[in-house]
């Protein structure tokens, strides 16, 4: 599997936009040529990060394109003030005193051609060889509205492809691509022209890259949002969507299936650089940026290293490439972006898009209708839609964020049919809490598995802080209260909550959870809520004697919530609650009473268990004395059996 290693800094720059470009030194394997806006050209050794050569342009001159080295002539070349080509030798100390050629047009970039001298690409999509600077080749852009947005080259041994991407400023949905296939001699250049027009929208493409696969040149186009298009002379195909793209990104093809993408976000929303597998549509390897990147993080490649600018540092990411296989891709599917197949279920897509777009379904009625249609369509055509986490998440978000109406029925439908998963509760629960929907929350606890602890705590805090009468009103019709009769106040001790509220809270306390995450979430809960909760836990500890409640069967949570949580569970919760708010417990005077009471009941329990230990020892002794003696008395003589293995 391809891997991307941790970044290191190659050199520091004066500011984030300092770098004009980085070019490979074609004759020395470890050298790169760095051209900076402060008129400085440096030849750096990548291995030991040491500058090998250094030239500076004269003041008043502006370096306008990255310097290159032409192995055929053994000369360096760059362009000053957009129109003046400068060439110099390795031994030259100053570049001013070398040969300068004034070119008629603005230069877009210089391309080093390994077989011959370099190629000069102009802003009007024409080019010329540097040994014949006046012999412009190719047809210039016809109208003023067109402009070259990108120019790239792909060098092979015999051939060099030079590609211009031309965009019309008025008709933004049209991309013209002009590719020149440059042979060893000038006459052999071939022009390939094609256009991409469909489905481009008004957005600007983020970046382009050239990919050479089975003797065919492709242009990769990255759109905002992560859509990747691959285009060639014969047509255009979609390569899926790169998930978690940041707003600015750039792309570089590494081989026929893998591309390097800078500006890709990790799960924790941190931007970085990654290797994306186009075939299996997944992120193979990812490394963060060393510094936050504000501008477009342009990518450069030199052999097995990727370069990008992070703030004021030029960073190097060494990488290894290996063929992407399905075996290596297994287990990484979580990062895959799923899109609906357009051709099959375009209706479904449009329905779904309507459903999640507040603009298309602004009213409750419209939403309800669309939802009903969607559900019936899915039921007849494609049940799998329910399993697409991304889709469901966006649906839940839409429901949760809807301010105008509250789609309660639809959410209840989704919850009871188990279409939602625990991770969606993060966005769902705040909405439920804000709508004070006790029933839906209870249903969530009943039907959804693996609810995150933060959501549980949020729900618990809501339960505890909500008035008792809310529960009794809203529960009359929906919650089964069978089997909770054991919660009736025992003796003199009175339950701090009403019957229904206690039932619901018990159900929540019995929900499987992890102490560590609970602890983190509980810290955020209001202290008064914590005190109430502690009071209730104290009550539970008092009335519960059995360590394991007979009805605690976590796998069957959809059964009516009968009984109380086990004593162990109650003790766990009490410990976590105390732990989370230890400081406040110490300081607060209100907590004092409940703490003393709690200590009392815990002490009683400890005494009880001490008694149990004594009983256990006694019973063990009794058992031992009852078992027949193993040792046989041999005496002076006996006849015994002997088995020899």
């Amino acid at each position, binding site marked *: 599997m391809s891997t991307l290693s941790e970044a290191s800094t190659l050199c520091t720059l004066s500011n984030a936009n300092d770098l004009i470009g980085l070019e490979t030194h074609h004759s020395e394997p470890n050298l790169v040529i760095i051209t900076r806006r402060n008129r400085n050209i440096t030849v750096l050794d990548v291995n030991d990060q040491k500058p090998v050569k250094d030239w500076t342009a004269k003041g008043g001159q502006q370096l306008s394109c990255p310097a290159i080295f032409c192995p055929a002539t053994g000369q360096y070349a760059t362009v000053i003030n957009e129109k003046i080509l400068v060439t110099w030798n390795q031994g030259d100390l100053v570049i001013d005193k070398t040969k300068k050629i004034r070119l008629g047009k603005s230069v877009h970039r210089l391309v080093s051609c390994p077989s011959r001298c370099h190629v000069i690409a102009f802003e009007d999509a024409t080019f010329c060889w540097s040994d014949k600077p006046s012999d412009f080749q190719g047809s210039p852009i016809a109208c003023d509205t067109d402009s070259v947005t990108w120019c790239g080259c792909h060098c092979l041994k015999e051939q060099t492809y030079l590609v211009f991407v031309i965009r019309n400023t008025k008709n933004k949905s049209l991309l013209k691509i002009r590719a020149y296939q440059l042979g060893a001699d000038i006459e052999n250049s071939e022009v390939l022209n094609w256009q991409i027009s469909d489905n481009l929208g008004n957005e600007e493409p983020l970046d382009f890259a050239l990919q050479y696969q089975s003797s065919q040149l492709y242009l990769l186009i990255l759109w905002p949002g992560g859509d990747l298009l691959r285009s060639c002379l014969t047509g255009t195909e979609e390569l899926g969507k790169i998930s978690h793209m940041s707003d600015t990104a750039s792309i570089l093809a590494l081989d026929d299936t893998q591309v390097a993408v800078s500006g890709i976000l990790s799960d924790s929303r941190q931007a970085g650089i990654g290797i994306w597998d186009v075939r299996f549509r997944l992120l193979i390897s990812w490394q963060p940026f060393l510094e936050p990147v504000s501008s477009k993080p342009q990518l450069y490649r030199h052999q097995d290293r990727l370069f990008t600018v992070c703030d004021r540092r030029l960073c190097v990411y060494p990488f290894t490439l290996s063929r992407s296989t399905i075996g290596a891709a297994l287990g990484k599917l979580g990062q895959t972006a799923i899109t609906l197949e357009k051709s099959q279920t375009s209706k479904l897509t449009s329905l779904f898009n309507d459903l999640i777009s507040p603009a298309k379904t602004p009213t409750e009625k419209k939403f309800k209708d669309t939802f009903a249609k969607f559900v019936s369509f899915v039921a007849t055509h494609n049940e799998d839609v329910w399993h697409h986490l991304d889709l469901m998440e966006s649906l839940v978000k839409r429901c949760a964020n809807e301010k105008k109406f509250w789609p309660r029925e639809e959410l209840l439908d989704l919850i009871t049919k188990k279409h939602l998963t625990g991770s969606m509760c993060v966005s769902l629960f705040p909405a439920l809490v804000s709508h004070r929907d006790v029933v839906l929350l209870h249903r969530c606890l009943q039907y959804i598995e693996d609810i995150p602890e933060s959501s549980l705590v949020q729900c618990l805090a809501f339960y505890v802080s909500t008035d008792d009468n809310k529960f009794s009103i809203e529960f009359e019709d929906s919650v089964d209260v069978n089997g909770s009769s054991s919660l009736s106040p025992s003796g003199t001790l009175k339950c701090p909550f009403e019957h229904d509220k206690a039932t619901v809270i018990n159900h929540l306390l019995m929900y499987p959870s992890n102490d560590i995450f609970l602890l983190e979430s509980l810290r955020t809960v209001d202290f008064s809520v914590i005190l109430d909760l502690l009071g209730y836990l104290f009550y539970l500890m008092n009335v519960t004697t059995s360590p394991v409640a007979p009805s605690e069967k976590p796998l069957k949570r959809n059964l009516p919530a009968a009984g109380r949580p086990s004593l162990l569970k109650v003790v766990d919760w009490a410990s976590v609650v105390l732990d989370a708010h230890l400081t406040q417990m110490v300081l607060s005077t209100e907590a004092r009473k409940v703490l003393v009471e709690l200590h009392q009941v815990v002490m009683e329990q400890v005494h009880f268990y001490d008694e149990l230990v004594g009983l256990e020892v006694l019973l063990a002794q009794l058992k031992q004395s009852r078992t027949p003696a193993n040792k*046989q008395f*041999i*005496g*002076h*003589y*006996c*006849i*015994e*059996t*002997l*088995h*020899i*293995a």
Partner: protein
Amino acid sequence: MEEFRVHRVRFFQYQPNAVHCLAYDNAFQKLALSRSDSSVEIWSEKDNWYQEKIIPPNEGGSVEALLWSEGRLFSAGLHGDLQEYNLCTLTSKYAVPCNNGAIWCLALNDERSRIAASIMGTEDGCVVLYEITPTGVEYHRTLDRQEGRILSVAWYDPENVIVTGGIDNIRIWSVKSGHAIQRLTMGRQLHNKETIVWAVAVTRDFTIVSGDSRGMTSFWNGRQGTLIKAFQSHKADVLALCVDAAGTSVFTSGVDPAVVQFEFMPVSETSDWSIWVRTTVHLQHSHDVRALTLTETSLVSAGVDCQLIVNELELTQGIRMCRHHPPIPQAPLVHTAKAVKMVLLQYATGLELWRLGSTDRRSEKDGRILSLSSNPLKLLKLTSHHDERIVTSAISSDGSLIAYSDRHCLRLFSFVVENPTDALPTMELRRIRMQPSPLPARSLTFTEDGSHLVSLTCEGTVQVFDMSGEQPKLEATLQSPSDGGNGVHLLAVNPSGKYIATGDHSNNVHIYSLKKLKHDCSLPQYAFQPTALAFHPSSPELVVAYSDRRIVEYNIARREYTPWSRQLASNPHPQWLRGHSRINQIMYHPRQPHQFFLRENTMFWIIDKTQPLPEPSQKLYQQYRSKKNLYKKKSQTKHAFHTCTKYKFLLHLDILDEDFLLIVERPPLAILDNLPPVLIQKKFGT
């Protein structure tokens, strides 16, 4: 593999005796050991510490000191005689009286020509010198008498002096003049308690080492008579002391059974100044250590706990090898009359005949004790004539003939039980007089049918008696084809009565034809002594175990080793050869002759010839079962060697009818229980 019902006999109250002294002969690698009953044992170091011979004790004899000189063994004791043993007939050759009282200690000079005997006396002691001549010992002279007893003596040849240890002092005597030339005074621990020097030794550089009743080991400069260093090495009397040949290492022990080593070591690696330091402490004996001696490679210690402990001096693979030789004699003490299920137990001065119990129960479970339908019964107790030590005994298969031999003669009895199954049977024992009186025997056996008695005489010949007539008749006396000067110790008779096999200390195994009454053939001579012999129940095959634990099977008719024996010899199992103890008994299973049984002191083996031999990598048995291995399943691969380590110490093993085995064991704890109390030491928490 096999399921047995075992007669587990523990009523044989065999009690070994405490060891009093040790002497090692470097030239022949033999160790002489005397016990409290004044018997002397000869052990062979090169034969894997094989107990070769037991010299039966004289009546009223005592052995307080033993000495080897050129392969001749001398002893002296409280009776005041210096005697030499005949190591072939195992009797005393002669005794030379010292005429001065009890002899307590013997020492030999470097030329091995003179013996110094320390005379304890009652009020005064002296040193008597003897000259060793080729035929005997001659009195040479007596040194000056001194006040007080002399308890230990040592020669220092380079200066021709003798060092003696007595009460409160050590004296140095000039052999030339006979006078004491120096007196080293010992301190006292308590004012009114005298210090007894139990042991002295002299190193090459005339350092005198002494061990005394204070528990101190002291090093003296012999020339100046000054104390170099003294160690409170023991909590009670130091009784034994030995110095190695180089004189740089000293071992002491005594009533406090720790064996402490002192070494003469340079103070630092580069320094040439050496001092005596206490180095190793061995805590292996449970009771007083009475004697210590050094062989070329190891330290031998023995004492009241009756066992012999051999510690290697050099480390092998980082481990100091240690061997415990339990006080179980190699010669058989138990004989069985299989047909009538009787056991003859041989005590020191008597015989007991027991009838075994019986059961008709069976059990599928291992180790289950079965209820008895009849109890064992002591039928007979026979005390030897004049309480003479019984050397060997035998009982015929039907129990009608009992024979035993002491040092002087062989006695034969006929024994008749009227109603053997009754609870109280009536019995009749009658001595059968033999004319002419036969030679005393070293080993006796009856043929399977009881028609012949075969006796291995003390002279190394085989005598065959015909028992079929009214009166036993000496049929033949068979001479050993090899020089029997070293003594013959093993005897076996073919069940069909065709052959007799003998094994001697010169590593020979001879086979005689009982029909022709002459020597038939001999096995190829091996480098080690045979320790056990057995005939195949039906075919003319003989299995022999040697003291290095090699086992050979020999076909007498073909005069060659059997193919299985060759196969065994070609890939001996390393774990088998590493075993410490010797094979005391070997026998074929009478009904499944492809199996034979081997008995050692602490375990027995069943070797099945039909099963493949174990690979060298396979473990024969788990010597120490760690907790980890306890629950591990035993390896399923089957091999020919099967073992049982349940019984300790095994005195006898026999195969009876049906699935019955007879095992006579003497548990180590039972032996320990009868020993005198040990030095009481304060231990933590007591």
